[in-house]
């Protein structure tokens, strides 16, 4: 990992739960789209809130959901993406850059493993470099302090932004509700404050 932005040691890895806790404190009203597996479990273990949308499937489309949401609302949208999931759909970054919503921050938890299937290694890449090649603003971190600084910059950036945070693999015990339709309705109602189409 490049240390150009963080000044952190290459060997360090941040605590994903501490970083998740920080972003919730910093952005208490943000609408959050969490990738299936560890990203969702970590989010649910820090705080289960109506503005959390947890994916239970569809690996590879998490960032796409965040993009569509950011285009549909003026609220701050945060995507909690996994490195394996992003790698499955890197092409979406070109669409994110083309649309460029300034209310979208994509956080990539780079734990370098497929956490939900047993920790098999991800054949990783330089995700921030890939994002920049697509035209996105992207920074890296590998400590909680580094993440806090990059996350603040990403929120302030006038365009879609990405923070790639290298983290220790974690295995939180918390699980979001399995009632996927309930998660959808709760999230949508929290954002729209009406009964919508249901």
């Amino acid at each position: 990992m490049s240390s150009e932005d963080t000044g952190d040691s290459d060997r360090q890895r941040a605590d994903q739960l501490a970083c998740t806790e920080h972003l919730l404190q910093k952005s208490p009203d943000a609408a959050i789209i969490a990738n299936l597996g560890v990203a969702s479990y970590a989010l649910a273990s820090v705080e289960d809130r109506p503005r959390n949308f947890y994916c239970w499937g569809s690996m590879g489309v998490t960032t796409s959901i965040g993009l569509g949401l950011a285009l549909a609302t003026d609220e701050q949208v945060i995507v909690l993406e996994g490195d394996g999931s992003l790698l499955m759909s890197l092409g979406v970054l070109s669409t994110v850059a083309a649309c460029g919503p300034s209310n979208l921050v994509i956080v990539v938890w780079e734990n370098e493993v497929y956490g939900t299937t047993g920790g098999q290694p991800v054949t990783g890449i330089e995700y921030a470099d890939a994002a920049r090649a697509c035209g996105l603003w992207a920074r890296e971190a590998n400590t909680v302090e580094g993440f806090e600084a990059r996350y603040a910059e990403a929120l302030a950036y006038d365009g879609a932004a990405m923070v790639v945070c290298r983290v220790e693999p974690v295995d939180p015990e918390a699980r979001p509700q399995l009632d996927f339709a309930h998660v959808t309705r709760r999230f949508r109602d929290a954002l729209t404050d009406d009964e919508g189409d249901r």
Partner: protein
Amino acid sequence: MTWIDDVIAGLRENDVSTVAYLPDSALEGLIERVEADANFETVPLAREEHGIGVLSGTYLGGERGALLCQSSGLATTINGLASLSKPARIPFLGIVSRRGDLGEFNDAQVPFGYAAGEVLDDIGIRNSTMESSANVERAVDLAVKTAFSVSEPYVLLLDATLTGAKDEF
């Protein structure tokens, strides 16, 4: 009124605000109209599967979306439809040019295109195939209404007999 006028009318009558698409020769005229219409926010996709995510986000944000693509692209969306749209109860309208049947010259388009409706049926995604330009506005209108009332996607498959087959024979 052409079938393209009818689709535009059906989308606008039902407040469809976001259209995600990949280029397709059969839908070229429709995509150009949508891009030029300030009533629609257009999202140019790199892969049709991403459209399932984008339009799910559209719905989560309180708006309505449609996906325009051809049947080969629909093939890339199956996991998204089956593991996001259907179980999470997230609707959108799919308008898909269906290859592989009458007018098809390309063997690579046949297996999925010909079976597209059956595959959607198998994963519980309702769909209709339209063979002619009669009643297109009515079909789009009702498809959007049932999708957003029932809270799951609905796909209209437009055959080459409607959109005009490529003259490659």
